[in-house]
């Protein structure tokens, strides 16, 4: 039976990873997370079903296992047939019903699979061997997570939403896909489409031709250009060409290469050494010589200095406008990141960051504030002399120079901008009359924001702003999170339903997911209480709830902390999930053998976690120069001890409660795991990852404290 539990757990996890990928390609990443997390409530639902009808289901282990295998493909196929369009939710409440239909369909295989595992746990509890079965579950899950990632290298049967950039391009006459690659970081499509041309924020004063281009889409979205043939004059008329007017840039680093247009731009302006860094290995293949790495991790490990570091526009206009990335972590746009980029500039080096504009202004305001705080922390004097902010009709480009801009340099950039119908909305010594001339806004918002951030009461500016423009930090790396609860009523009052576009979708979906998970969990946990569960329920609820929340808090916070250290979100996920689940599995095998009470393991987890909350970042910084394998090994070594103890907690608890309560405890743990996964992100956005780790320590402490009061 344990072998089947092992395989079944692996299949469920692999299915989850693959489904997430499929929905990210078909729809958008944040909706994928929403759908999967709700589907995982199947674990909670299985607990409810087992609590209510345990006797009837007693012999159902094989049936449920077969049921999972059969329903998995069928329900996935059916869910793909539901014409759910996330973007329409604002305008059509009917879409919520379709979303609900997708949930229900995906709930089926997860519930049936979880039922099988729950039944196996109940049976092994009766034989006093619950630890071994739970270990099989954890080992299987670890294997499944890795297998799922490997499966993402294969073509997945996905039908893209017609609103994704790739599908729109393919609807145009003459479009064809020239190359496709499958990867866990995103499916890459290179498209030949004569009617599609990419030149983000191109000057309206440009009158020349465009080269023949191919367009690169990742997960059917984005769209960056590969210039194949023809004149490249347009590159001189993009906002990102601004730094080349300051002085001749010889050593250039481009973060986020995409199709490679910015590499060509650098060479065109005479750069002698051009380094490109691209996170996605299959995208990197498109430009020879590009380094595959996460931009921040690359700069941390680099010992070189550059004349120009160019952070290109990594998202499309539509993606940026809808704020789907609000809940995504980004270690490129934090104060510490900018400090490191500035630290890698030569004495006269320039950091150039281009972002899409938004109305009302927020992205570029936050970027300016981030750069100011980064320079301040780097101990640079006369801050105001180090910035230029160039604004076109659709983009804003911030130049940060390590040494002050000279009047000559400012003059050159201003003349260049004027020829291109761009405004220079901030330069040292600017007055309100100098700005907001060519691309006119009702008020010179960017100039005033820059003045306040540099010379006024910055704290009050952050506090009073309609959006969250306080700089992101490594502790809270959510640059794209602009939503503020405090100002939401104001937006709602003044705009009615029209306010919806101004909320970052990623955040709204995250909060909606949390709300749904909480409501669904209340029902799933509450129903058996009313009909089936007897005994000291509160302590069981508290113990298994704390475990569910604590486990996910720890796993997610550690995964985030490891992203920078390991240099790639994918490696981080693989190393953390595999280590945590395998060592938790080993821990589970020891529960009831060498360890008979949960207080010791709980205290150990809490102490180690608190220690990590304080010292993990410092340890990671120290070992940063080490080889990739050493860093992966070190990560595993650091995560193994807490994981080992975490694995003991669940079987020790199950062994102590009456068998009748087991399914309910299984359900409580399932529900709180789902809530924990979402809540960890929400908490991190508002309070930071250290707070999430400290809370995890408190939760395990609480579980340890109530353990003795679990019904024996």
């Amino acid at each position, binding site marked *: 039976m344990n072998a089947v539990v092992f395989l079944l757990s692996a299949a469920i996890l692999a299915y989850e990873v693959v489904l997430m990928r499929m929905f990210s390609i078909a729809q958008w990443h944040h909706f994928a997370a929403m759908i999967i997390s709700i589907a995982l409530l199947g674990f909670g639902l299985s607990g409810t079903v087992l609590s209510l009808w345990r006797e009837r289901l007693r012999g159902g282990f094989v049936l449920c296992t077969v049921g999972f295998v059969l329903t998995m493909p069928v329900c996935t196929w059916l869910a793909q047939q539901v014409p759910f369009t996330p973007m329409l939710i604002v305008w059509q409440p009917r879409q919520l019903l379709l979303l609900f239909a997708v949930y229900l369909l995906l709930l089926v295989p997860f519930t049936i699979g979880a039922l099988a595992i729950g039944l196996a746990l109940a049976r092994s509890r009766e034989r006093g061997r619950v630890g071994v079965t739970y270990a099989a579950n954890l080992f299987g899950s670890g294997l499944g997570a890795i297998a799922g990632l490997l499966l993402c290298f294969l073509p997945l049967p996905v039908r893209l939403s017609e609103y994704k950039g790739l599908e729109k391009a393919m609807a145009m006459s003459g479009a064809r896909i020239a190359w496709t690659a499958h990867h866990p970081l995103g499916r890459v499509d290179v498209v030949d489409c004569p009617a599609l041309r990419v030149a983000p924020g191109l000057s309206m004063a440009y009158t020349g031709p465009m080269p023949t281009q191919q367009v690169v889409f990742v997960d059917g979205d984005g769209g960056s250009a590969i210039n194949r043939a023809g004149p490249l004059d347009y590159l001189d008329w993009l906002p990102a060409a601004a730094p080349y007017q300051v002085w001749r840039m010889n050593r250039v680093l481009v973060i986020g290469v995409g199709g490679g247009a910015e590499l060509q731009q650098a060479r065109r302006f005479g750069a002698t050494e051009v380094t490109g860094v691209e996170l996605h290995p299959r995208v990197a293949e498109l430009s020879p010589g590009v380094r595959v790495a996460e931009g921040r991790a690359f700069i941390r490990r680099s010992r070189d200095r550059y004349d120009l570091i160019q952070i290109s526009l990594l998202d499309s206009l539509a993606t940026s406008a809808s704020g789907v990335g609000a809940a995504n972590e980004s270690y490129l746009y934090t104060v510490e990141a900018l400090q490191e980029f500035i630290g890698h500039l030569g004495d006269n080096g320039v950091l150039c960051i281009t972002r899409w504009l938004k109305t009302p202004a927020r992205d570029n305001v936050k970027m300016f504030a981030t750069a100011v705080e980064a320079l301040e922390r780097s101990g640079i004097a006369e801050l105001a002399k180090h910035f230029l902010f160039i604004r076109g009709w659709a983009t804003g480009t911030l130049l940060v120079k390590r040494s002050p801009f000279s009047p000559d340099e400012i003059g050159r950039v201003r003349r260049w901008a004027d020829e291109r119908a761009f405004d220079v909305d901030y330069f040292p010594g600017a007055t309100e009359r100098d700005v907001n001339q060519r691309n*006119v806004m009702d008020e010179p918002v960017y100039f005033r924001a820059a003045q306040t951030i540099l010379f006024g009461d910055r704290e009050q500016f952050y506090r009073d702003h309609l959006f969250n423009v306080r700089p992101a930090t490594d502790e809270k790396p959510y640059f794209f999170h602009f939503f503020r609860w405090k100002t939401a009523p104001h937006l709602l009052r003044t705009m009615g339903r029209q306010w919806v576009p101004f909320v970052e979708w990623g955040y709204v979906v995250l909060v909606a997911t949390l709300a749904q998970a909480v409501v669904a969990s209340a029902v799933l946990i509450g129903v058996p209480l009313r009909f089936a569960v007897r005994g000291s329920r509160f302590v069981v609820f508290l113990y298994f709830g704390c475990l569910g929340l604590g486990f996910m808090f720890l796993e997610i916070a550690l995964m985030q902390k490891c992203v920078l250290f390991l240099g790639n979100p994918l490696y981080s996920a693989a190393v953390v999930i595999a280590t945590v689940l395998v060592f938790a599995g080993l821990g589970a095998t020891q529960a009831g053998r060498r360890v008979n009470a949960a207080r010791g393991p709980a205290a150990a987890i809490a102490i180690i976690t608190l220690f990590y909350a304080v010292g993990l970042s410092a340890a990671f910084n120290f070992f940063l120069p080490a080889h990739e394998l050493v860093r992966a090994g070190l990560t595993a070594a650091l995560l193994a001890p807490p994981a080992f103890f975490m694995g003991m907690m669940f079987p020790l608890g199950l062994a102590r409660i009456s068998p009748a309560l087991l399914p309910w405890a299984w359900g409580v743990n399932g529900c709180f795991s789902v809530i924990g996964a979402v809540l960890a992100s929400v908490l991190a956005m508002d309070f930071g990852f250290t707070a999430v780790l400290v809370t995890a320590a408190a939760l395990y402490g609480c579980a340890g404290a109530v353990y003795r009061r679990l019904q024996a």
Partner: protein
Amino acid sequence: MLRTVAIAIILIVSHAAAADFDARRERMVATQIQARDVTDPRVLAALRKVPRHEFVPERWRDAAYSDGPLPIGYGQTISQPYIVALMTELTGLKPGAKALEIGTGSGYQAAVLAEITTNVWTMEIIEPLAKSATDRLKRLGYDKVQVKFGDGYFGWKEHAPFDAIVVTAAADHVPPPLIEQLKPGGRMVIPLGSPFLQQWLVVVEKDEAGKIRTRSVAAVAFVPLTRQSQR
């Protein structure tokens, strides 16, 4: 006899449905357009007249006058009525002036423009949409609107320059040929945002000397909270 009764019933039903759509259209203009400060009488009259329900797919017809965009297939939408009204008003289009639209879609925006001026050209790159919009505009009596299937990037040189250009197919840059084909003193309007959430519009103005300036216009009535702190 039976046939006559059937025809009479169909006529009565269709007449009642048309009257119902007329009432909804009136309500749409009053509550969605005028209420949001679109005041140009020509624009208001155009939106009162163009039967929007004829421009949406059959399955969405009932929602044709609701306050939002609707899907028309191929990843395209018919914009929210307010956005259409605002864009039309921002072009400053006058009777007799020449207007070019890039991205015909359903043809609704072209029909609204055609209520103001008889010189409307519109281009669509998605062939089935170009074809259905051509048929629809003809059927509804907008036969002076010229629809061309093709790449709007190069504009419509034969009829340039234009007093107004409406770019409904959002791109990450404005095609240089379109700016060239804008008459000095003319205006181009571009909506920005995602397909279902158009948040602001960029108005491009070319002065008599050919110099370009843009203006960004929020697509919602918006009261800044930060005004005080910025002073």
